[in-house]
């Protein structure tokens, strides 16, 4: 291992990157764009659900019932209807996601038998959202029911009656259930995978394709020196991108960072090494740049996006996907970043994830070197 030769490769790669506008864009603009996109657009918070109400009775009781919905920040009552025909149009054109229908005899059975019915129509296109909306509706009605019952008992002279069980909910770690708080830590892993693996996947195969590999190999340059020299600039870039991501999370989105900043940097660097080595492995085993790019997309970026726990919870996936996720280094970094950011965790809890990242780094590096030696000989 000769530091001078590695340094020569490092400097040359930096010049390549600096002169190639496409890689520059990918390095600087991509993380910023991803942050903006996911930070602002990918919100799973459901509030202000556009709601229409068809109140057929138009009584004092029904108006009181409706007011409960108007007073909640989860609903935005935008339309009052006068016929069934309008409902179909509003739901198909997605002008509203929820319709409440109060029948002509809404209050009469309530007085006589003590119970009545209301029809709830939800746009079920997105099952997850529909469930959440239905939950909100039931919660509002639950409070209404409780009020009506206690009022009734009060009138019968039973006085103020206590409800047996009430819930006192607290959400831990992400108190306000802001989705940006768990998107941003996960994004660090996705962005680092993208910059790290996609760019390095091209570097070795490019030399083979353009015919300069033969000349490089007839110099005293060692293969390990070449790989290391090619990895180093992307390591620097990956770390810079990571700092950009952290800074944007902190100052633009106000994401709290509760754990050790140094630990966050250190473990991310470890992950970056594994990802860069993975990119190099792809590069030395590919025939051309296109193939390398597709392989990198398929084996690094997509898994980091889909089965790392970045957005979709791994525990809810079918077991084959859960099993596959163990092979995705991003999974461990997502656990780490979310743990450090939201829970303020330290190595006491995160050490298994750190070990996995170490293992992945060693595995990918030695595989890349081994395949490289075999290929060029």
């Amino acid at each position: 291992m000769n530091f001078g030769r590695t340094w020569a490769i490092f400097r040359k790669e930096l010049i390549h990157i600096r002169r190639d506008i496409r890689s520059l864009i990918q390095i600087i603009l991509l993380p910023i764009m991803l942050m903006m996109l996911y930070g602002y657009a990918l919100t799973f918070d459901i509030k202000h659900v556009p709601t229409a109400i068809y109140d057929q009775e138009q009584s004092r009781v029904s108006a009181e019932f409706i007011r409960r919905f108007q007073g909640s920040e989860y609903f935005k009552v935008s339309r009052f209807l006068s016929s069934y025909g309008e409902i179909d149009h509003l739901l198909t054109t997605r002008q509203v996601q929820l319709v409440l229908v109060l029948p002509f005899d809404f209050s009469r059975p309530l007085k006589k038998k003590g119970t009545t019915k209301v029809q709830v129509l939800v746009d079920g296109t997105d099952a997850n959202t529909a469930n959440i909306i239905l939950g909100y509706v039931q919660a509002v009605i639950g409070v209404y029911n409780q009020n009506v019952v206690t009022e009734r008992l009060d009138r019968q002279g039973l006085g103020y009656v206590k409800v047996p069980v009430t819930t006192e909910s607290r959400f831990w770690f992400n108190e306000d259930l802001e989705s940006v708080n768990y998107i941003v830590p996960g994004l660090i892993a996705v962005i680092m995978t993208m910059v790290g693996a996609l760019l390095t996947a091209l570097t070795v195969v490019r030399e083979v394709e353009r015919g300069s590999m033969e000349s490089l190999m007839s110099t005293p340059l060692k293969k390990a020196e070449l790989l290391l020299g090619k990895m180093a600039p992307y390591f620097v870039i990956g770390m810079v991108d990571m700092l950009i991501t952290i800074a944007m999370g902190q100052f633009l989105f106000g994401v709290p960072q509760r754990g050790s900043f140094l630990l966050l940097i250190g473990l991310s660097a470890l992950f970056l090494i594994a990802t860069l080595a993975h990119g190099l492995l792809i590069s030395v085993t590919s025939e051309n740049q296109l193939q390398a790019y597709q392989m990198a997309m398929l084996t690094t970026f997509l898994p980091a996006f889909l089965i790392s726990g970045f957005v979709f919870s791994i525990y809810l996936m079918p077991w084959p996907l859960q099993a596959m996720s163990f092979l995705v280094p991003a999974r461990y970094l997502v656990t780490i970043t979310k743990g450090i950011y939201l829970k303020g965790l330290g190595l006491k809890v995160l050490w298994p994830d750190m070990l996995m990242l170490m293992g992945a780094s060693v595995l990918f590096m030695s595989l890349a070197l081994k395949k490289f030696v075999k290929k060029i000989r």
Partner: protein
Amino acid sequence: MEADKAIVVQNLTKVFGKFKAVDGISFEVHRGEIFGFLGPNGAGKSTTIRMLNGLLLPTSGEGTVAGYDIIRQQDRIKQHLGYMSQRFSLYGDLTVAENLSFFGGVYGLSAAKVKERSQEVLSLVGLLDRQKELTGLLPLGLKQRLALASAILHEPPILFLDEATSGVDPISRRTFWDMIYHMAEQGVTILVTTHYMDEAEFCDRLVLISQGRLIAEGTPRELKAAVPEQIIAVYPDRLDDALEVIKKLPDIAEAAVFGTGLHVATLKADQTEAALREALGAQQIAIKSMGRVPPSLEDAFISLTTRAGRS
């Protein structure tokens, strides 16, 4: 090994699977010599070169380059060798100076040394005033000269030129060879593979490789003298038709297009001349001129290769 031998190779053999790419080649190259390595495509030239510059291990046989063993001291060989390949190996998006600085770094030269040597080699190849230009924008002839400059930056005592001038125009090639001569005079040993016959004439000595075997060795003059056939140069008016007819004649060792005419190699020149006139006349092909010429290196190359192929 003796001090005046730059390259010594004995019984060098390389087998890929069942294919014998190089089959028991032996030769020696003296210090300061321009040594030519000739042969048709796929003859085993590149494989031999790759065993000599430390990229490939021989299946059997042995050799030394610059005094270092080709099996055990590949790293030392690489440090003492300049290599310029047929494929352009410089980086188009780096400037002339950056390319040199990169290769200097890879050969372990200090920054000061790179600076000093860059000026020397750039003035040698006439690129001193273009250091800041992007290499990709240079014309091919100049790229080739820069490749030469980067191959000799670390002052190697031995230089390999692997079809280094392919695709370069004749004037640039001429300039290139003047530089090669100049380096040989300084004591640099130069190993050349080429398929330009005029370049082969520039070599002090040559070996001819065919199907992995060494089939001839000597100076260009010796190789030409080794041709047993006589060469008849024919200039007919319909070249392709004439070649068809001539190839069917008896006693013809080889017939091939040579410039605007044909070179016909034969052991029985008088009979062949008569047969030629008769056969071409029968096809109404006019002969503009015909006469005997001394064999060129290309004639020698074709004659020796076909003879080796037959045996």
